[in-house]
């Protein structure tokens, strides 16, 4: 018989601490859709996606009811479209983005990711054309997400692509200026992009993945924050153990849901992504976890150490709870999607520089950060280069999702709505880095001996 305390603990986690499964993401390979005729290509992609994922939403809702655990998002990731549509023009790629939108809309999923290109060492014609198509594609679709991998630890940093992405982000911001440049919230620039990430906007279905797969992203910042609050005034050893135990429990729910969804849909189970994903709701904040550890406000001195410990303990607890772990797996620190982060930025405690330092010890990177609309493209490229360099040098994934909010400046607030939240516009350095960015070429891959 189950223990009463355990049962009530689970109920409390769901009811009071916002425990949920953040996403069930179905990865679908589109390689078998390749055709030299764009109409045929579009039809085959639409058919493959709608056929493969026809039961996704229904199965997710069934699991939600059966276990009484909210499953917030149902999503799809596909093979990077630059590979599937390698021969297309930018206009052709925009057409494919609309096909993805139509297929995802038909299925009732929340997002579809994979309008992506991998250019860490150089761009093919297809990748170049897809990148050109991004601003228009993200303007004319609503739930299609795009990502571009511009660097890897093995290849170094493609600075031509970094330079280009600054311009693409600016153009996307301008195109969607009537909605606080929301197009940029659907575009991420990566180093060391994972091939099995279930989270948006960076989800894609990598080339080494099976034909179809189920990946699950767990959540639960509120549960961790509550556990730390309950642990009270204890040493770091006890604190780390507390986080590990709670992360284990959270991840076991993800594992259960992933295995059940994969079996019901009839496709392999891929991975559970052990990420703490916050939302703008009260009590669902990663910043609150750090503050519960003893920081007056997130962003003050000690924040990087607190986050490093949190991230490590979450992984240690989660790894044992799941048979396969992957994706991004770490704490997310998006600004607009986390109320504690928003408050810390408003108070002036959390700066872009501190966020950059924090990304060296947790997953993802500079995420959902609103910057002034008149920021030069080369400055955006400079932000990308800095963040990507952290990922490349440290053999980890980092990414940049910044939103230069058209027509708004420091002191204003950008409103994105829903899970994307809202964000105060953060100040940037005024001094230019354009001569640096304009050099172009590649920053060589880092050496991985002689460590220091």
């Amino acid at each position, binding site marked *: 018989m189950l223990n009463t305390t355990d049962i009530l603990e689970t109920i409390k986690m769901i009811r009071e601490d916002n425990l949920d499964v953040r996403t069930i993401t179905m990865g679908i390979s589109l390689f078998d859709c390749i055709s030299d005729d764009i109409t045929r290509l579009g039809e085959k992609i639409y058919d493959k996606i709608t056929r493969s994922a026809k039961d996704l939403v229904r199965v997710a809702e069934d699991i939600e*009811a059966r276990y009484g*655990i909210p499953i917030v998002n149902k999503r799809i990731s596909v093979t990077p479209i630059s590979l599937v549509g390698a021969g297309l023009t930018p206009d052709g790629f925009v057409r494919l983005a609309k096909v993805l939108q139509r297929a995802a809309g038909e299925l009732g999923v929340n997002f579809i990711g994979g309008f992506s290109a991998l250019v860490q060492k150089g761009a093919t014609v297809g990748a170049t054309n897809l990148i050109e198509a991004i601003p228009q594609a993200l303007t004319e679709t609503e739930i299609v997400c795009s990502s571009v991998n511009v660097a890897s630890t093995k290849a170094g940093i493609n600075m031509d692509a970094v330079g280009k992405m600054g311009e693409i982000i600016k153009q996307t911001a301008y195109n969607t200026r009537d909605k606080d440049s929301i197009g940029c919230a659907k575009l991420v620039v990566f180093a060391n992009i994972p091939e099995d990430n279930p989270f948006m906007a960076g989800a894609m279905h990598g080339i080494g993945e099976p034909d179809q797969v189920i990946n699950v992203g767990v959540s639960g910042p509120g549960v961790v924050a509550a556990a730390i609050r309950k642990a009270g005034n204890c040493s770091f050893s006890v604190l780390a153990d507390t986080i590990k135990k709670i992360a284990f429990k959270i991840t076991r729910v993800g594992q259960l849901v992933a295995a059940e969804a994969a079996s019901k849909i009839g496709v392999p189970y891929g991975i559970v992504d052990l990420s703490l994903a916050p939302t703008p709701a009260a009590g669902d904040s990663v910043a609150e976890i750090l503050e519960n550890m003893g920081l007056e406000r997130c962003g003050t001195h000690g924040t990087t150490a607190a986050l490093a410990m949190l991230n490590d303990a979450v992984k240690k607890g989660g790894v044992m709870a799941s048979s396969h772990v992957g994706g991004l797996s770490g704490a997310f620190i998006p600004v607009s999607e986390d109320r504690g982060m928003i408050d810390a930025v408003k108070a002036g405690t959390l700066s872009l520089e501190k966020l950059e330092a924090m990304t060296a010890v947790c997953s993802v990177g500079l995420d959902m950060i609103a910057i002034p609309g008149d920021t030069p493209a080369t400055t955006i490229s400079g932000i990308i280069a800095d963040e990507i360099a952290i990922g490349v040098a440290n053999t980890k994934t980092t990414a940049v999702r910044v939103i230069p909010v058209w027509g708004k400046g420091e002191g204003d607030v950008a409103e994105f709505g829903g899970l994307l939240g809202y964000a105060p516009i953060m100040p940037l350095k005024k001094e230019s880095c354009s001569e640096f960015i304009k050099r172009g070429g590649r920053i060589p891959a880092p050496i991985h001996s002689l460590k220091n």
Partner: protein
Amino acid sequence: MRAVITVTGKDKVGIIAMTSGLCQKYSANIVDISQTVLSEYFAMIMMVNLEKLTVSFTEFSDIMKKAGEEAGVDIRVMHEDIFNAMHRI
């Protein structure tokens, strides 16, 4: 298939009768039951066998939820595996 029914909220007369009455109505067999009252806060846990349930799991869960709302308590029906997964290695 076994599920756990939890009823939490302010203590009042007839909560167990109402919940077990609905179990009988839809042929959910009560295997075990326990309850605690902590300063007017009531928590009842029922383990039920749903092999002979006359409605679907989702319908049963919705009926229970609605009955709870009417009585001013929180009633949840959840498959036992979620608790086994979280609390047993």
